[in-house]
Every structure is written in C-alpha cells, then in structure tokens.
C-alpha cells in the first residue's frame, strides 16, 4: 500500500485538546508522526510581562487548567526567589497538601481519559466521579472548582477552612478504596492489556535524550523526581516512594500513575498530621517590587518537570517570563513513541503521555 499522511486533528474526537497530529501510515502501521501545536496559543508569556506578580497567578491557573494549583504554586516559588522572602512553614505545608491533591485530581483525569480511549467507559465515569471529591475539597479551600487563585507570593491566600482535614481524610479513605477497583477493572481486562502492553515503548535512552520528564520518564526506568532532587517545598519531611517502571510502555505509564495517586495520598495524610501552626503569609506587603534578578524554579508537576524562568528588572512587573511545560517536551518525543504503532492505538498513546494542550501552547 502507498504511504500517506493522515491528519488526526485539530478537530478530532479523541485528541484531548485542540492540536493536530499528522501521522504517516503504511496501511495500519504508523511510520512517522509530526505533532503540530499552537491552536490555543494565548501568549501567556507576553501577558505576564504586563501584569504584576500577583496578577499572574490567575493566568497561571489558566495555563495548565487541569493542574492549576501546581502552576500557580510554581509561579509563587519563582517570584519568592527573586523577591528573597521565606515562606512560613504552615503555608509550605498547605502548599504541599494542595499540590498533592492536585496531582491526585490530575491523575484521576488521566485514568479516566486513558480508560475511555481503550474502550472502558465505566472506568472513565468512575474516575471522573471520584475526581469530584478532590474538586469539592478545592472548592472548600479556595471557593473555586477549577481556577483556584489560591497561592500568593509569600504564602497562601488564607488558612485551611474548618473541617478541611476531616473532609480530606474522608475523601482519601474513599479514594484509596477505589484504586484497587480501578486496577481490577483495567488490569484484568484482556482488551485493556492487549491495547496497552508493549504499545508505544519509550526506551530509557530515548526518554533521557529527548527531555521527557515526570511519570513518563519514570515509566521508562529512570528514578527521578524534582520533589526530591531539586526541592522547593519541604518534601523531605514526608515519607513516600517514587514509583519507577521498567518497560516504558503504555501499561507502565498507566499503572505508575495509579501508584502515584496512592503516594500522593500518603503525603497528604502525613502533611495533615504534621502541619505546624503559625501564619500563612510572609510579610511581603501589597505591592511586590523585587530587586533586579533572575530565578529558575522547578517543580514536579503531575505531568513532569514544570519550570519558570522569571527575570525581574526592579519594577513591579516581571521583565520576562518563560514557562517550561512538561507536555511540550514530552510531545516532541511522540514521533519516536508512535513508530510502529497501529493507527487504532494512536489515541490511547496520545493520552498515555497525559496531554494538556493549555500548557503546551501557553
């Protein structure tokens, strides 16, 4: 059969966002791929140059709209480094709690999306339903379900609401009982296994070479976690594992994220136990004017290494903001992963790297 290029997107029911993946196929087999992005490029980096440091926080919520909290916290960490303030311990702990809850919510959306793409619509509904519990917690914490606008440069907006710890524990109890159910519904399904095991293998060397980070890198067998190797939050206070895979196929990427949900729940429980008393905001004042300088802050986003390079020129607005999106880099490795995959498996493979077009395009 002659080779041909097929556009999967930008309007495609299975692409999880507005982007275009051109695949070169020979019959059913993918030979090459060319991701084309930028369909929802909003110029966030340019907008940041025209906002004050605290005004950027809502923008960051909209950059990575599935993991708003992690992006907003990352911006706050970068700004604090330029500004040179210490965040009070209680605010640090609240950040850890909300960050890990965000990871759980984001991974649950991944579980639902990936299950949907492999045809397990029940898991899709269950995981989306269970994500609601986390969103309810965020609503309790910040008042919003999606764009929280909760962290602030120098701390967080307000303290934990009364009853938050109990509600969180209840939600985690429920979730931890659910994960074996998800595993039973996915890992014991023959269809699921056939469509995941050995599909779209990303070898260790390729993952390292192409700048893949986060769960996708760990699934390929590299034990690397920015939370531990380049800490900007007090993760050394908590006892948790960094799950690492071996094979780097879709199955590993899926099971590894289920395990990460468990580990995040562990961290949240420990943090709720050991949260110190004290203020939740450092003394930074209403108007934030950092001295001229630069900072490069990295955090372990649910999707990998997110980083912000912020440059201050001594005014109340940053001179330049560069956002390093984890999915942006992982997506550039997609052609390597897709080589040899059957065309029908392309949507699950796309989802297996946990796509989020908002942060890819910025």
């Amino acid at each position, binding site marked *: 059969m002659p080779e041909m290029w097929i556009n999967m997107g930008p309007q495609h029911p299975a692409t999880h966002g507005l982007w275009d993946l051109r695949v070169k196929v020979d019959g059913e087999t993918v030979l090459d791929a060319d991701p084309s*992005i*930028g369909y929802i*490029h909003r*110029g966030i*980096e*340019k*907008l940041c*140059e*025209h906002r004050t440091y605290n005004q950027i926080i809502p923008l960051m919520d909209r950059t990575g709209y599935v993991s708003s909290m992690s992006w907003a916290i990352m911006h706050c960490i970068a700004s604090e480094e330029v500004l*040179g303030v210490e965040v009070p311990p209680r605010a640090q702990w609240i950040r850890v709690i909300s960050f890990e809850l965000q990871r759980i919510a984001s991974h649950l959306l991944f579980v639902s999306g990936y299950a949907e793409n492999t045809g397990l619509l029940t898991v899709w509904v269950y995981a989306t339903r269970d994500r609601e519990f986390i969103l309810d917690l965020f609503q309790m914490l910040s008042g919003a379900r999606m764009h929280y606008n909760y962290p602030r440069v120098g701390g967080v907006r307000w303290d934990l609401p009364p009853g938050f710890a109990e509600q969180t524990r209840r939600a985690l109890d429920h979730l931890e009982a659910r994960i074996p159910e998800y595993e039973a519904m996915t890992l014991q399904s023959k269809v699921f296994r056939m469509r995941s095991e050995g599909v779209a293998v990303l070898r260790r060397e390729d993952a*390292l*070479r*192409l*700048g*893949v*980070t986060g769960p996708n890198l760990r699934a390929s067998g*590299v034990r*690397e976690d920015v939370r531990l*190797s*380049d800490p900007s939050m007090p993760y050394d206070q908590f006892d948790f594992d960094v799950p690492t895979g071996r094979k780097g196929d879709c199955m590993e990427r899926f099971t590894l994220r289920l395990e990460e949900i468990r580990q995040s729940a562990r961290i949240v429980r420990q943090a709720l136990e050991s949260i110190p008393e004290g203020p939740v905001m450092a003394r930074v004042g209403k108007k934030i004017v950092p001295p001229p300088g*630069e900072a*490069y802050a*990295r955090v372990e986003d649910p999707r990998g*290494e997110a*980083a912000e*390079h912020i*440059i201050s020129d001594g005014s109340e607005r940053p*001179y*330049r903001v*560069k956002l*390093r999106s984890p999915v*942006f*880099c992982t*997506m*550039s*490795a997609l052609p390597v992963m897709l080589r040899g995959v059957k065309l029908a498996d392309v949507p699950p493979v796309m989802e297996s790297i946990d796509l989020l077009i908002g942060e890819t*395009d*910025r």
Partner: protein
Amino acid sequence: MASEKARAPGPEDEVLAQLKARFPDFITEGRVKRARRIEATVKKEGLLEVAWALLEMGFGHCSSVTGVDRLQPPQMESVCHAWSYERKMLVSLKVILPRDNPRVPSLVPVWPGAGWHERESWDLLGIVYEGHPDLRRILNPDDWRGHPLRKDCPLPERKQFVVPRNYDEEIARSITRRRESGYTERGEEAPPS
C-alpha cells in the same frame, strides 16, 4: 541576599571551576547563584564545545532553551538550562547576541530535546539557531510575520470600559444607528423595517 554570601563552597563551585579551567577563553562570567544553580556567560563561538563538555560531565537533561530581549543595552540573550540527574544541579548557559541579527549555534546535536525549545525561541523571539534540523514556527501559524515576544512588539493597552448611566438607552441608540446606516454583520442588505 545574606544567605547567598554565607553559603559554603559546594560541589557547584567545583563544577564551575572545572568549566572555567577548561574553557578560559569562552566563559566570560560565571557564578554559583545558590545551591544547585550555576550561571555562566559563554561566547557564541564556544557554546557547542562547552555544551559537549557539560554532557560529558553528566548534564544530560536540557531543561529549556529560551531567549531574552533586552533594550538597554540592545542585545538578545539565548539561555540554555541543563540539569544533571547525577550531580543534581542546573547550569544556565547564557549567550549574548546582537539584537538586529541574533544567530547562535543550535544545541540539538548535544541535547535532541532542545529541538522544540529552539523552535519556540525562533518563533517568539526570532533567534536563529544555526544547524537546527527543522527550524519552523511552532506556536504561531506558519504564515505569521514578526516575533511577538520581542519588546518592540506592543501589547494593546487595556481599555477600561465604563458603563454609562443610561446604558440601555445607549445600546438602543447604537442599534438604531446601525440599522439606519444599512450595515449588517454579513454585509447584506438591511432588513426592511
């Protein structure tokens, strides 16, 4: 900051000293900013050699490549951040380029993961990465003109919208005015009223 001066020499200083000793001509400026952060300014001619040396030293992960447009003095900076999984530290390599014709060697041979970052930097700032295998626009459409993150590309001023007191009347009047002028959205004839 005070903590910066109080920091005892660590493995970061060793790496920086090694680099400086190996490339005395290329590295014009270097300092350890804080724990796990090294900054170095490199001459354009030596960038690839320094990058290869860094890869040998274990800096296998290119975290990002980005550009900074400076107006005072007019210059363009291309900054590459490389992270080492083994040593657990980040080196920022800064190259200073002329603003009117910024050209810098591409880092794709050293770190293939830099490919999309350089495409983005070319797209948004117009820095040409020489030797890049596929230097196309990435976020903007292919037929876009100009580089929007440059400082001379202005963002339109935000206009404040003030609700007039007689808001409903104003709206009604503007609709009537539009009807009377014969203008419709699709350029058709005005409907008979």
